[in-house]
């Protein structure tokens, strides 16, 4: 480092570099500790957390699809209190930039979780999962209705001074209107995209593969859809974007940055290559040097016409 400035300010979330690991794909940080120096990651977005503990969906919960995977974890998590008391401290000790990812059954629940986080130290920003397609009461309805998106964001903003980053669902007709609603609610940045809703069939048993029937599609397969939505939103909505969906190498990361992502997130890619976040950070730095660019910001939106 040094020659190029890799740091990013994502709507108030200060990141040492633009590469985050996505919620639900990196556990609580410690699981991958022997594969990657987690202190070098731009931000660790921890597993989606709810007010009460949740035991998650019945298995099978994951399944491979062409260049992608389906997951229906069902937001298994120990609840916000246990997360803050038992999981957070170890991660804080590493000096990592930690982003919470929260999901609620109601606007009030989102607000309440936020209040609890705000009373606690160690969290740098809050990503609002308004888009998890797995839990009937846990997101879908918020992420697909502009009015609800705005309401949730407003309610959460009132409870905290932390940057609030709604994570948009791609399962919508008009992503721009959703993004605008989030902005109008006071969002500091946007995270996009969450998984596409999909399914697979076990033809031998003649049933859906996943215990939950439907699951979220992630991985390289969805990259074209993610790029398109970020491009559309970047053109219309003046908020920094944390972009992801299928990133698996530096070239992919550059595609996201060039359609308007100020920072990127790596999800499924961690499963394939646990040190991917670090490799991409290095790859981006090398690219900037080669291109004679001083900062990553100079590339953001470069391909948007």
């Amino acid at each position, binding site marked *: 480092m040094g020659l190029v400035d890799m740091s990013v300010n994502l709507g108030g979330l200060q990141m040492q570099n633009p590469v985050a690991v996505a919620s639900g794909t990196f556990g609580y940080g410690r699981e991958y500790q022997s594969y990657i120096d987690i202190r070098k990651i731009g931000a660790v977005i921890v597993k989606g957390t709810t007010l009460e503990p949740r035991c998650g969906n019945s298995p099978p919960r994951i399944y491979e699809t062409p260049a992608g*995977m389906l997951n229906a974890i069902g937001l298994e998590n120990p609840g916000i209190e246990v997360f803050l008391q038992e999981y957070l401290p170890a991660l804080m000790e590493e000096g990592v930039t930690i982003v919470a990812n929260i999901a609620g059954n109601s606007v009030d629940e989102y607000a309440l979780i936020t209040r609890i986080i705000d009373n606690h130290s160690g969290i740098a920003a809050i990503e609002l999962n308004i888009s998890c397609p797995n839990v009937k009461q846990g997101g879908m309805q918020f992420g697909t209705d502009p009015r609800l998106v705005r309401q949730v964001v407003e309610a959460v903003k009132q409870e905290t001074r932390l940057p609030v980053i709604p994570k948009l669902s791609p399962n919508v007709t008009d992503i721009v209107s959703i993004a605008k609603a989030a902005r109008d609610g006071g969002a500091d940045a946007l995270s996009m995209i969450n998984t596409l809703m999909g399914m697979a069939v076990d033809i031998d048993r003649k049933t859906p593969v996943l215990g939950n029937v439907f699951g979220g599609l992630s991985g390289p397969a969805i990259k074209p859809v993610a790029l398109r939505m970020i491009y559309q939103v970047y053109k219309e909505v003046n908020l920094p974007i944390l972009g992801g969906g299928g990133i*698996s190498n530096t070239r992919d990361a550059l595609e996201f940055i060039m359609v308007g992502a100020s920072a990127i997130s790596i999800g499924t890619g*961690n499963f394939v290559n646990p040190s991917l976040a670090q490799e991409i950070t290095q790859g981006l730095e090398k690219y900037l040097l080669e291109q004679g660019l001083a900062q990553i910001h100079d590339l953001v939106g470069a391909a948007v016409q």
Partner: protein
Amino acid sequence: MPACSSGIVRSNKKVGPDLWEMEFTALALAREAQPGQFVHIRVGGNQDPLLRRPLSIYDVDAGLITLLYKVVGRGTEILSLYSSDQPLDVMGPLGKGFSLVQDRRVLLVGGGVGIAPLLFLGRELKVRNNKVIVLHGAGSKEETCSGPKFTGLGMEYRIATMDGSLGFKGLVTDLMEREIDPKSIDYIYTCGPEPMMEAVAAFAARNNMPGELSLEEYMACGVGACLGCARKLKASDPSYVKICHDGPVFPLDSVNIAP
């Protein structure tokens, strides 16, 4: 500490119908591996197939790791195309392996390619002064390539084949019920199809015998990060274990296989 390493394939050969044996070197991995643990392998380098494939550690000897795998789909098929000196993208060792008893009379029951983790286990059990009997169930004689490896390490190896082409004709659990005197065994380890392990667990329970088994689930991360490989050990359990992280090995009596 497990790591992501570039192993080097030393050999990769067909040892039965759809059955392959791969040897590779990966020093740290070989040093730390425990019986019952697994490795997580990226096959090919393209986006399809995307996820790593979990395979048990079949044997570890002098820095060389051996896998025994059955070609059942695209991932294992691609793996079978690897040749000597090719690099192998492998994570591990992963998961919690078998506990290693000492000075006991031990029974290992393996079904099909489920025999894989039992060889390395048997090796370590012999080192710990156990008397080891291995029962192996296979479709036919052609699938029993591991036999000589067990006997070579000083274990008693008995085989049951479905077609009777070698040893006992029928289920390995029938062989077990027929030939194993429960009083002669202190501890059971098993790995194989779930109905088989269920019969083994029932046998153990009937005879008040402790033991362990190894489970499988689809896996993505292999390290406990994705919560994908969830399973309730007993239907009454409130929460799910993660096979990759809490297992794949569990006490026989903690699991209730029938749904």
